């Protein structure tokens, strides 16, 4: 049956066009219910035991956390609801999609819009909203008559009008609250989002005196759009200062500068990463407050100073600055200061944290209102209603924001779930993982079903495979960090008769076990990378693959993908060969062992000789790379010694880099470059490569200023020049060079994966490695990018067919973006884990140590402790003290105390005291004080 759909729409250029589309109605859409005798049974998702729920759009949009709870089941999701959700909120739509495909949940998507009996035509004068509501009711009624009276169809809607009409039409309908109440699980009630109006009443009851608006009303969208067009308002993403949650910046393209926003009132309910519209304040209010380190995040201070001015026309005085943390006389500065007048795109998420300690309300069991304090200081406190206060008070919980009314000081949200006891190491680790959106769920049955049967051993087919070369006769060995169990690379080196070397890099052949399109592959693509925390590892692939089947362990036969070069003693590559292979590693060495072997001149066994040969080649290759302008960058990598029993850190120190590390790194880089060239030659449009953009002058400016303040002249014209001047930057201080390198690293953007079809070849350049092409090939066990590159290389060698995903440009770009996102999150999680363990370590051991100043602020400075790799603020003025004693010079490189000779400048060495303090309950932090 054919229906024609026609509507009028406005294009981006502002023209009005009439769109006519076909709309086919079908008779082959099944109802998905188990008891139905008419419909095909293959697509059954709904069991007959309980009543069947049909949910309205508003329920999906607002109660998605509740829907994700296992207690809510047997749900029909109508396609009209899904379409509406997709138009309103993409992230909810994606979560809904995940729910509908989840095998554990019985969510059935019913295409009511294309079903011949449930399609409703828009009536004259009916709004699209009303039409959709009618479609939902119509579908509910169809289900009831289709399945008969034996099954209860329950329409869940929070729309009063819709519910009334449904009841009139003889459909049983309930609101989400009453339905959840009928389930009799009090915990579930916390997940229900109460509409804003109800919350407001409650708050008004609690604080009758403060009914006044805390914040200015947001301007309507139409006004914002026209304001942006006339350049009265400026659009940008709000970023809240990590050290001071009352200060935020909005990077605006229309001004070409960052607009500073002081105080919660001026931020006007915007969260970190929200896209906001900002209005500039008059110039005389651009008080020149240098960036502060918030002395304490005591939000109660706000009560007096964060009030909206009596008239909406008068912009608020900069009260926060005048009475707040500084007390300094405002100086007019040239940095634009503004305030948020509207929010264009919200970035509300769920947050980890804990409840603020509070006295128990009289009478247990009822709903209590509590304040939630996020672990992330940039997030304001969130008001939630809970029925289980006693349970939650000492737990880490997850809370989602629902709304923020201008008459309430805090946003209101609802409880999602509990993670565990506060302060418990496992809980805190989990918090880190959740914060970085890392999937820690065990692998599903479908994924595990893709694994080859264990114990795995080399099969006859593998040996007979003409594409697989038998390299078992070669003396292959691996060098990795001590205790490494997922060994994905091994090397060999032999001398030819003509004096040349044959060097091979052998990488675990993961793609031999992970086929494209399988659940295993999809899971790995979604995880993107393994995550390394201090005390544990979250694998990208299931353990049997990572630690056994793929791991190139010593004395077992393993499948590998090999890159073999013929090299002259001068490390010139004469020829490159790529092949799948069978290898048998003869030794799995650690870096320390390998180094010791090379250093011990008495050892002359074949493996040691190979190591020495490789090392001499690596040194030449490294030198050549440095000559080309590769940068040696540094990061503050820290290593813990962990107690095997308690898993508490015993010792902490900087990670030591040996020659052996550099040797392995060199050959891995070379293999990656060789593979990048090969795959790009065969697939110029769909190769996955890695690039590192050249930093702009502006990005490197802070580095140059800092260096200049200590009399160091950095040449940043090319990467080569920068590398040379970094090499020459040697002070008396042994850490000086490293510190400069760390600062240089921070100025640069991260390297990213990309699809070669998306960019011009000139942009493929990897700045840090000074290589025109680069990719990741050498760690397929722990990075999905490498798995993709393996497939590309296999297709280039015509061993295997290219998986279809590489032909879908959009999909490939999406995959690359996901890999970048996962990679960044994994790094952040790693760092957060180090921070957590540092905290645990210093909890029992207050320490005095040396530190270097890296950045001067108005009331203190940020120091870096090289020994432990810690960075943190040091306050020179106590809380509430006048800041006036200290003045900072124009370039912000030195600070001097008035009337004395005491001054501090960047890169200066200071002695500090490290101690863990707990200024607020459940937020222990490492405090650094000057001695």
């Amino acid at each position, binding site marked *: 049956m054919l229906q024609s759909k026609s509507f009028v729409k406005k294009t981006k250029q502002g023209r009005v066009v009439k769109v*006519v589309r*076909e709309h086919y109605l079908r008779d082959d859409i099944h109802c998905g219910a188990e008891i139905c005798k008419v419909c095909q049974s293959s697509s059954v998702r709904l069991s007959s035991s309980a009543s069947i729920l049909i949910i309205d759009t508003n329920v999906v949009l607002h109660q998605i956390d509740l829907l994700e709870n296992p207690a809510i089941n047997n749900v029909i999701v109508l396609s009209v609801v899904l379409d509406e959700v997709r138009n309103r909120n993409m992230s909810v739509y994606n979560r809904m999609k995940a729910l509908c495909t989840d095998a554990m949940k019985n969510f059935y998507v019913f295409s009511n819009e294309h079903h011949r009996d449930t399609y409703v035509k828009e009536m004259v004068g009916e709004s699209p909203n009303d039409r959709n509501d009618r479609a939902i009711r119509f579908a509910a009624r169809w289900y009831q008559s289709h399945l008969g009276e034996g099954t209860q169809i329950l329409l869940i809607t929070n729309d009063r009008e819709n519910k009334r009409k449904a009841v009139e039409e003889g459909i049983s309908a309930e609101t989400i609250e009453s339905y959840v109440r009928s389930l009799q699980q009090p915990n579930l009630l916390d997940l229900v989002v109460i509409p804003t109006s109800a919350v407001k009443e409650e708050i008004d009851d609690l604080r009758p005196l403060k009914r006044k608006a805390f914040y200015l009303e947001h301007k309507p969208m139409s006004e914002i759009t026209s304001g942006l067009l006339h350049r009265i308002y400026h659009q940008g993403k709000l970023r809240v200062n990590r050290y001071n949650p009352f200060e935020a910046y909005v990077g605006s393209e229309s001004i070409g500068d960052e607009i500073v926003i002081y105080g919660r009132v001026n931020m006007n309910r915007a969260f970190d990463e929200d896209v906001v519209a900002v209005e500039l304040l008059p110039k005389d209010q651009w008080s020149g407050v240098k960036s502060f380190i918030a002395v304490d995040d005591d939000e109660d201070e706000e009560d007096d100073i964060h009030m909206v001015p009596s008239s909406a026309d008068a912009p608020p005085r900069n009260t926060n600055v005048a009475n707040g943390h500084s007390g300094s006389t405002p100086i007019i500065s040239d940095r634009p200061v503004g305030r948020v007048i509207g929010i264009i795109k919200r970035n509300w998420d769920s947050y980890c944290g804990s409840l603020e300690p509070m006295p128990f309300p009289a009478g247990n069991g009822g709903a209590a209102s509590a304040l939630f304090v996020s672990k992330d200081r940039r997030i304001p406190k969130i008001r939630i209603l809970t029925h289980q206060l006693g349970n939650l008070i000492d737990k880490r919980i997850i809370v989602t924001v629902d709304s923020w009314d201008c008459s309430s000081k805090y946003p209101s949200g609802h409880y999602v779930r509990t993670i565990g006891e506060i302060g418990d190491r496992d809980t805190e680790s989990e918090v880190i993982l959740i914060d970085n959106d890392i999937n820690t769920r065990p692998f599903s049955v479908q994924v595990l079903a893709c694994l080859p049967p264990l114990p795995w051993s080399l099969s006859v087919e593998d040996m007979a495979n003409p594409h697989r070369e038998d390299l078992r006769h070669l003396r292959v060995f691996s060098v990795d960090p001590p205790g490494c169990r997922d060994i994905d690379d091994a090397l060999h080196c032999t001398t030819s008769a003509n004096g040349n070397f044959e060097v091979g890099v052998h990488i675990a052949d993961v793609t031999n076990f992970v086929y494209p399109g399988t659940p295993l592959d999809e899971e790995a693509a979604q995880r993107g990378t393994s995550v390394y925390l201090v005390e544990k590892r979250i694998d990208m692939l299931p353990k049997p693959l990572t630690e056994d089947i793929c791991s190139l362990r010593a004395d077992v036969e393993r499948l590998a993908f090999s890159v073999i070069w013929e090299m002259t003693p001068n490390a010139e590559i004469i020829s490159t060969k790529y092949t799948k292979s069978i290898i048998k590693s003869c030794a799995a060495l650690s870096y320390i062992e390998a180094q010791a072997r090379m250093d011990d001149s008495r050892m002359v066994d074949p493996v040691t000789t190979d190591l020495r040969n490789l090392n001499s080649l690596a040194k030449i290759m490294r030198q050549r790379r440095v000559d080309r302008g590769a940068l040696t960058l540094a990061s503050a990598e820290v290593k813990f010694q962990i107690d095997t029993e308690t898993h508490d850190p015993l010792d902490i120190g900087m990670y030591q880099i040996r020659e052996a590390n550099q040797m392995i790194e060199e050959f891995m880089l070379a293999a990656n470059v060789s593979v990048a060239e090969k795959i790009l030659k065969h697939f110029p449009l769909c190769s996955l490569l890695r690039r590192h953009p050249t930093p702009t002058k502006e990005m490197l400016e802070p580095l140059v200023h800092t260096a200049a303040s200590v009399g160091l002249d950095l040449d940043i014209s090319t990467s080569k020049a920068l590398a040379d001047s970094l090499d020459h930057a040697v002070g008396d201080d042994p850490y000086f060079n490293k510190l400069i390198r760390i600062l240089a690293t921070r100025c640069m953007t991260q390297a990213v994966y990309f699809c070669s079809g998306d960019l011009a070849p000139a942009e493929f350049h990897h700045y840090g490695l000074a290589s025109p092409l680069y990719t990741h090939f050498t760690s397929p066990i722990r990075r999905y990018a490498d798995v993709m590159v393996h497939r590309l290389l296999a297709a280039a060698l015509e061993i295997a067919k290219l998986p279809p995903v590489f032909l*879908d440009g959009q999909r490939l770009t999406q995959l690359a973006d996901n890999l970048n996102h996962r990679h960044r999150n994994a790094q952040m999680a790693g760092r957060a884990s180090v921070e957590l363990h540092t905290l645990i370590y210093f909890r029992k051991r207050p320490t005095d140590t040396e530190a270097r100043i890296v950045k001067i602020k108005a009331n203190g400075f940020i120091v870096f402790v090289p020994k432990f790799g810690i960075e943190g603020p040091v306050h020179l003025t106590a809380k509430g003290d006048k800041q006036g004693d200290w003045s900072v010079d124009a370039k912000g490189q030195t600070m001097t105390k008035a009337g004395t000779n005491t001054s501090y400048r960047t890169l200066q060495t200071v002695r500090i005291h490290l101690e863990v303090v707990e200024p607020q309950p459940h937020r222990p932090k490492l405090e650094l004080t000057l001695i």
Partner: protein
Amino acid sequence: MEYVSSLTGFRFDGRRPNEMRQIRGEIGVLAKADGSALFEMGNTKVIAAVFGPREVQNKSQQIDNQALVRCEYSMANFSTGDRARKPKGDRNIISYSADHGSKYINTFDASFSGKNLKQIDIFLQVLQADGGTRSACINAATLALADAGIPMRDIVTSCSAGYLCSTPLLDLNYVEDSAGGPDVTVGLLVKMDKMTLLQVIALMPTFFFFCCCICFVLLFV
């Protein structure tokens, strides 16, 4: 964009990936032409008029023992609902005329080649465009030729297919056609089991062409 819903498996208009739009054909719609047909594929609507076989008008074009087929293709100004679009000088027209002209030569039966009546004129006009105009034109022309009673070895039929959201899709409409995915149009001689047209428009690696063909064959057969 999700051109095929991952949850229901339906396309925007409610079709499954391997389903065509509704087709409708009518012959003899123009009284003056020797043969004519109106053909619809969904919202795409094409009219075809055939004149001939008649004497070759321009004698210099006459080739012995061969028929001359002229094909003129045009899109009505109102066909896209967007008046700004100018049909003249459109790249499509040139390639269309060339295509159609050469394509039919082999299709016609040689039975009329002995006579002097050797010119066939085909006029195609797109009345409403909603994707797949090329296929609709070929189908309309076939109907009109049959209506004119011109002997043919076989009936030429045509349909397009594309590849979006990692799914092969049959018979793209305008929305799907303008999504930027690869797109293949195939003309088939059904009884003779031969292909007369294979046209691919896409930015893609060469071997992808084969994937397109394969997906088409899978869908069509």
